[in-house]
């Protein structure tokens, strides 16, 4: 098994699995349990200014999107930053770092966008012996109404400014946590970099309204019959997070900026995907909140075996290995051609492939042969869109076959795998060659 020890911007941890700043890292009790369970590090639940503590709602603060088996697919919250007094948190952080010197302990911060506020809190955190800082510029609800969290993360100038203060007033490495509620993730990431950030972490939660209660006709979660938008996370946001992480990984302006990936990571496979697309480590919240800390066992074992099987000597070795496979649409090979094919021995004749292709795609799957139920792809109509493969309930029954040195009977074109054609050079592109 490949050793999972990681060094992320100088912060060492026995494995790349950190708990993201959230309820699982709210206090010493939880963090102790997490470390006992084997987590490599934690980002402590976001601390705010000294003074009267934050007040959370006493009504429901979570709501979920459930899958067919009631597994949690998406998760939403309207919780604010820590509602415990600053001194208690700092004392606990200090004690935990002393008890667990080999684990990563990063402290998340969110104070008003004023230099004095940051200047005041940074030495207090440094005094705990914590390994680093994470700046919460991402929380999209509640705190953003008060000019913090996503309200800062959505303005690149503020991101740069606050990052620079932190670098000025603290010796600790700084991770800037980004909000996905922006048009392009590259702008705030570049700003963080120019402010001197050591790394970025992403994504924080996505603006969301989970559902409407069809009995009471009010939004959920409902606080005395009223609700507010929350932050969305969990398995459902993984593709969005993957896109944003990989978009930074291939942005020349962000080159060399380490990434801590967050968003829907539930198991070692998810983690491996994020790493291959450029993440130096990963952070987890919803999966822990829906299954408990024990999930890290499978994460550690699975990732170790995967890296070994692929011949990677370390986590670092794998980071970014899939980034070169990501490109713009215009650079895709338009000569590459696939056709759907049905394994008749595996086919259970549900007919789903037929009806989806017939109603919403290319009318390329016939439903009968000799008057009997029989599903067959008509290659002269199939565009290889993959819809039928997506809906087939039987694994490996419907697959795509790539054409090689043969004629595509739909277009009449000869498919030569050595001849590539990109949109940039396509005859139908008026801009080709311009």
């Amino acid at each position, binding site marked *: 098994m490949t050793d999972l020890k990681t060094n992320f911007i100088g912060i060492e941890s026995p494995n790349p699995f950190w708990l993201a700043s959230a309820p699982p890292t709210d206090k010493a009790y939880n963090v102790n349990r997490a470390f006992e369970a084997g987590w490599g590090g934690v980002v402590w639940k976001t601390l705010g200014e000294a003074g009267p503590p934050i007040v959370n709602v006493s009504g429901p603060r979570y709501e979920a999107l459930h899958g*067919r*088996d009631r597994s949690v697919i998406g998760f939403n919250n309207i919780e604010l930053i820590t509602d415990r007094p600053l001194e208690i948190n700092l004392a606990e952080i200090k004690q935990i770092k002393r008890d667990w010197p080999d684990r990563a302990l990063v402290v998340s911060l969110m104070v008003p966008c004023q230099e004095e506020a940051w200047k005041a809190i940074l030495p207090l955190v440094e005094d705990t012996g914590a390994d680093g800082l994470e700046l919460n510029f991402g929380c999209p609800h509640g705190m953003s109404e008060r000019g913090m969290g996503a309200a800062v993360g959505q303005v690149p100038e503020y991101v740069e400014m606050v990052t620079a203060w932190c670098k000025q007033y603290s010796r600790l490495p700084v991770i800037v946590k980004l909000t996905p509620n922006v048009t392009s993730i590259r702008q705030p990431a570049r700003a963080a970099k120019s402010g001197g950030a050591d790394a970025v972490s992403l994504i924080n939660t996505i603006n969301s309204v989970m559902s409407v209660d069809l009995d009471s006709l009010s939004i959920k979660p409902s606080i005395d019959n009223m609700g507010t938008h929350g932050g969305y996370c969990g398995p459902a946001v993984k593709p969005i997070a993957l896109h944003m992480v990989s978009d930074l990984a291939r942005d020349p302006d962000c080159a060399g900026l380490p990434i801590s990936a967050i968003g829907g990571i539930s198991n070692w496979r998810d983690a491996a995907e994020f790493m291959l697309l450029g993440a130096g480590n990963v952070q987890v919240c919803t999966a822990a909140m829906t299954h408990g800390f024990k999930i890290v066992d499978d994460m550690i074992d699975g990732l170790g075996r995967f890296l070994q099987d692929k011949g990677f000597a370390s986590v670092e070795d794998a980071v970014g290995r899939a980034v070169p496979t990501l490109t713009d649409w215009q650079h895709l090979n338009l000569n590459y051609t696939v056709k759907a094919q049905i394994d008749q021995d595996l086919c*259970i*004749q*549900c*007919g*789903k492939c*037929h*009806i989806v292709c017939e109603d919403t795609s290319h009318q390329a799957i016939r*439903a009968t042969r000799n008057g009997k*139920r029989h599903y067959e792809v008509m290659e002269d109509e199939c565009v290889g869109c993959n819809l039928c493969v997506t809906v087939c*309930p*039987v694994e490996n029954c419907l697959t795509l076959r790539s054409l090689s040195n043969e004629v595509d009977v739909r277009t009449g074109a000869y498919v030569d795998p050595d001849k590539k054609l990109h949109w940039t050079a396509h005859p139908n592109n008026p801009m080709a060659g311009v």
Partner: protein
Amino acid sequence: MELIATSHNGKPGIATDRLSEEACARNFCEMHTPLEKNAARVEAERCYFCFDAPCTEACPTGIDIPGFIRMIANGNPIGAAGLILDENILGGTCARACPVETLCEGACVRNHGDDRAVNIGLLQRYSVDQAFSQKTEFFSRTASSGKSVGVVGAGPAGLACAHRLATLGHNVVIYEARPKSGGLNEYGLAAYKMLNDFAQREVDLVLSIGGIDVKHGMALGKDITLEELRKRHDAVFLGVGLGGGASLGISGEDAPGVMDAVAFIDNLRQSERYSGVPVGRQVVVIGGGMTAIDAAVQSRLLGAEEVTLVYRRGPEAMKASILEQEFAKIRGITIRYWAQPSAVVVENGQVTGVEFETTNEAAKGETFTLPADMVLKAIGQSPHTGSMGADASFALDGGRFIVNADRMTSCEGVWAGGDCIAGGDDLTVSAVQDGKVAAKAIHLTLSNP
């Protein structure tokens, strides 16, 4: 606790109170535990929502099964019931009594490999029961057509026909020989399939549409003639089912203790107390259909000590499915294949056994005798069209009406359906379909004179 209570009182011969009433009531519990809300949703989610679904093709009434299951999955069981009842007004009974393993569930694409079919029967029952308990009204009548249709028999075929005609605005009079409506739903289906008064509650629902007048104690051929019916009504539908059980044609058949299985079940279904139904200590059931299985199982549940079902061919040839055979075996019934009765053994005017002859090639002609104090004959019911004076005016096949695709008989203006027609499969669901198809055809005929 035992699967079934069997600590009978050991009285020889045919006797009541073999088990306490409580023990009987426990024995006659639901054949399949109904689904609760969550279980129903989880099961509903298993449906693939197939295109041109094989289950729908396999349902004689053509219920849109993926359609109604999707409604259950999305939390709309009442809508699901609407979809079901639209095709099959007796969807509640069919959900309880259909041999789904040979119909819809047998066709489910999930039967492939090590998977199992979606539990369509229980899902149908879940949604229809929900609608029943909420007393949802799904149907209303269109403007009166001024036409009148006479329906003979208030069984599944007659009720389905009458209901559909009523929704289409016609007035219906049902002539029913017996004091209760429902046909075999009330008098024949196994007690463990039709717990409590479900059959009558369903009949009430069917009749609540209005425009249907049921005249009980009116037997065609006795209290009224076909000629009178044709004069009184614009069209006639015959859903008279079948008559008494066929006879074995062997010696001793008339001895006390030898009974028709259908009559035995009829008596059970109509009795106030289970324990008041007389049953033998050693029961031999002869036959291979659903009636044979039901009679055997029910005698056992009443406290019979030994129940043996004897069938003249092998398990695959039996009309009762392998699943039903298993169901009986689990309840302690011994099934003996490849034997046919040659004589009922009678001593002192009382049945003491049945002598059988083996029918398989290897042991052909061998005989054996099973001790019995009660013998139930379940070798099929005979047509009784003769008693209605139908022989002369109709084309018949083995005493059953020959009908066309619209279920019209050879006699102009007279339709027929259910067990009394030729070529059917003697299932409740098929009787419902016949009634529905005939009603549509009658409606067309009456609308375009």
